[in-house]
């Protein structure tokens, strides 16, 4: 089913999404990948606060190319999510409602998605030029020294994603290939 969803992601919207839904996301989303996750995780371990609010927000696993002059951002597709698996359950337990990336997740992440009524979306990997057109504003809000890996606040319009793991724990990667196997 095709859906249009505005971020931040409400509990109600998150729970209404089903694995296989094609969704256009609009609103505010935050980028974070390997180094930013490591730093946020360490901040929590040290009892410090996070630089961005987790509650009902969605994180996009993205490290963009630099913006050309006059452009908002450079190429901006998803990176492989599995490298964030170590950190994701903790962020989900703090209220993170959704993640946009690509590729498989561990059972620990799936369990945390179910426990918190959250969603894991996949964007099309390797379509960074196309996806960049959906980003209308981009500002670094934390960890500027990390360059491409800094946390950015993005304003997006109709970013196309697919629900891979829904709040009930259904995993599209586990079922989709079976259907097409010869």
């Amino acid at each position, binding site marked *: 089913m095709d859906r249009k969803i505005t971020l931040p992601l409400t509990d109600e919207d998150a729970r209404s999404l089903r694995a296989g839904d094609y969704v256009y996301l609009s609103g505010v989303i935050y980028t974070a990948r390997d*180094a930013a996750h490591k730093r946020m995780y360490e901040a929590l371990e040290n009892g410090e606060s996070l630089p961005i609010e987790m509650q009902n927000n969605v994180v996009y696993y993205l490290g963009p190319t630099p913006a050309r002059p006059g452009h908002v951002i*450079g190429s901006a597709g998803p990176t492989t999510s599995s490298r964030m698996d170590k950190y994701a359950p903790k962020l989900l337990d703090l209220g993170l409602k959704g993640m946009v990336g*690509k*590729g498989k997740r561990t059972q620990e992440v799936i369990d945390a998605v179910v426990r918190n009524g959250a969603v894991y979306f996949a964007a099309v990997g390797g379509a960074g030029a196309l996806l960049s057109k959906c980003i209308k504003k981009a500002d670094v809000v934390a960890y500027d020294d990390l*360059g491409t890996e800094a946390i950015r606040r993005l304003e997006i319009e109709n970013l196309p994603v697919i629900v891979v793991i829904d709040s009930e724990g259904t995993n599209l990667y586990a079922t*989709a*290939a079976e259907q*097409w196997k010869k």
Partner: protein
Amino acid sequence: MRTVQVQTVTDTVREMCISVNHQLSSDMVCKLTEAVKIEESPLGKQILGQLVENMDIAKTEMIPICQDTGMAVIFIEIGQDVHFEGGNLEDAINEGVRRGYTDGYLRKSVVRDPIERENTKDNTPAVIHYSIVPGDGVKITLAPKGFGSENMSRVFMLKPAQGIEGVKEAVLTAVAEAGPNACPPMVVGVGVGGTFEKCAILAKKALTRNVQEHSSIPYVADLEKELLEKINSLGLGPGGLGGRMTALAVSVETYPTHIAGLPVAVNICCHVNRHIVREI
């Protein structure tokens, strides 16, 4: 003896870095365009359509095809009658990468040390493979490699008794495990033979081949066709979300090996299989 100024190498590498990250070679464009027609899954067709549109936007608006503009892998063939002048060749190559990635607004994805992980901020150094060949030419092949797919690549040290069936099993195992992480539809480079490191270099080199051509060795060409068919029966499909087009091409390179061994390397590349060649 022919003299080549290293500045020419720098300028050439710079231009190659920018070009290859915005425009795929015509063989890759043909394969992706064909894939849209072949795919049976509606979602798979939609994803492939996005990838074709993405290629057009990248080329016309100069936005890199993928945000992972890779680590620069360079194969340089140097004629033995060439003399380089004006500085160190390796420095000249890295200067080309530095300028290309900076001037071309490409992502700097290289860290100085694998454990300490401080970004070098200019995407250097490149990984450079040199070979000395007859003549007085210089041929540079650049293949920037993204790590979503690089991380899913494997080396298998098989026993000779496992033979060609063992090779097939190794390739299918690597592709199935890679799944959605490697951004299918993939291009699969396979190196068979040599030593531990030689088979990995062969697999990387296989990825720089024209994806519309098969090996000139008949049994290897048959192996490439059979592997592609088997991979496209796995059902992974575009984005790993189900469908026929799990791989666009399989390229296999072979080399003599030891009586006791059968090394096999599987270097997986996503659909953004970038390769470009220039001769100086």
